[in-house]
């Protein structure tokens, strides 16, 4: 009995080592970009299948899964390798290497110049951009003031409750739902032409404090279903679309943080002025 247990233990130990070896082999092919057909996938799968009945511990099963995962990556690489060989661009790497080593630099450059069409870029100061920059410079407050002003924003991110906002004097407790209603009406009016309005154009106001207040109320409009956010990731644009009636929540809700910091507001104000 003891002898058979000892035998089983040694089989498990060997199997573990083999799985580790399989993982290492696959990893080195993946990282070094070696020919994936150097790996005999069928052989590895056969070994994994053979060892599978020995696994009892969860760690061993994890090792088994990891090995399978790496083999799957190799199979994927083999697919890509075949695809690459089938493209018009494929040429024997050995031939290319030989040419690169054998040709003088001048000939290599001649060849490159025939297939190279560099991009044209300009860098130039215009009178308009210069006067714009001057205007910005004259309006820019001294560093000591700016650092003082943004000092309070350099704290950790925290959530704000309705009570906190009332306490800070941004909102009065009685008017919260009235404010929300009036903002909803305003949103519907602003979006009456296009059906939507750009986020910053809606929340942005003449003062930073008012902008924060509008952003805060707008987040409630969205949470309570009075409006929805439309996010265009590619264009980095965010729109708000008002709902005619507060919509019932369907599906899982997600939170989407939007930074309303002082610099963003100054930038928006500058753009609006321009």
């Amino acid at each position: 009995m003891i002898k058979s247990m000892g035998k089983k233990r040694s089989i498990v130990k060997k199997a573990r080592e083999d799985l580790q070896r399989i993982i290492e082999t696959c990893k080195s092919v993946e990282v070094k970009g070696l020919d994936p057909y150097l790996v005999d996938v069928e052989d590895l799968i056969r070994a994994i299948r053979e060892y599978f009945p020995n696994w009892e511990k969860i760690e061993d099963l994890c090792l088994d899964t990891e090995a399978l995962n790496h083999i799957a990556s190799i199979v994927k690489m083999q697919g890509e390798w075949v695809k690459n060989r089938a493209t018009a661009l494929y040429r024997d790497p050995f031939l290319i290497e030989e040419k690169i080593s054998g040709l003088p630099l001048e000939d290599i450059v001649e060849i490159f110049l025939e297939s190279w069409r560099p991009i044209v870029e300009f860098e130039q100061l215009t009178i308009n951009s210069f006067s714009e920059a001057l205007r910005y410079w004259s309006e820019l407050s001294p560093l000591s003031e700016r650092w003082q002003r943004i000092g309070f924003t350099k704290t950790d991110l925290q959530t704000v409750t309705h009570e906190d906002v009332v306490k800070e004097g941004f909102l009065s407790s009685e008017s919260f739902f009235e404010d929300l209603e009036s903002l909803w009406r305003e949103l519907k009016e602003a979006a009456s032409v296009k059906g939507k309005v750009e986020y910053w154009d809606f929340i942005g106001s003449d003062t930073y404090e008012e902008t924060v207040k509008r952003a805060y109320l707008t987040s409630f409009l969205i949470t309570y279903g009075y409006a929805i956010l439309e996010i265009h990731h590619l264009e980095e644009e965010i729109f708000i679309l008002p709902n005619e009636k507060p919509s019932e929540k369907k599906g899982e809700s997600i939170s989407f943080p939007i930074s309303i910091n002082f610099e963003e507001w100054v930038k928006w104000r500058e753009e609006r002025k321009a």
Partner: protein
Amino acid sequence: MERGEKGLSRKAYYASKIKRAVHLLFYKRHSMPGARGWELRKAIGSDYPKIINLLDKYLERLDLTIKQVFEEEASPPEKPTPEQYDKARFYVALRSGFTSRDLKLIGWRIDDLAALCASIAYIISKGGKAQRKDLEDLLKNKIPGWRVDIDLNRFVRSGYLIEDENGQIYLGWRTRAEVDQKKLVDLLLKTEIESPAQKWGNHPGEYKF
């Protein structure tokens, strides 16, 4: 008379759109030059492909062209959809290319450019990625080691190559935009390597090693 005025205002309309497109395409506004299709649409309207074609025809006289690089770079669409146009990147590039005499004008040393060419060709031959170490070994055959490092870092910085955290090197956005990869590989394979004796015999006094 009215017809003439209409024609004039149409001309003025296109002229102003073309000017706007020139500003967007020639001047760098992000870390990368050129503009995305959606940026052009936003600035010059939904008929921007037509404006780009008009500008391209105009630039032909100056030996320049507008190059479109689509996201599906392996097989660029024959008839791109508006969505594909929106995601594509548009650049102004040279139409006919340089000669080796122009090299000094564009600020490239001949050995740096040869190293770039060798790197690109080698990566293409390796199926789009290669180990930095292998590439360094290849380049060290012809240029000093300290220069190889500087060159590779420069190629990565300017977008010709991309390096990942495992030391693998890939072709970057600038190579895709500027280099005709198929032509490069074909030309390289077509060129005969002359033996030193052949060279000496063909061009006495012009031996290049």
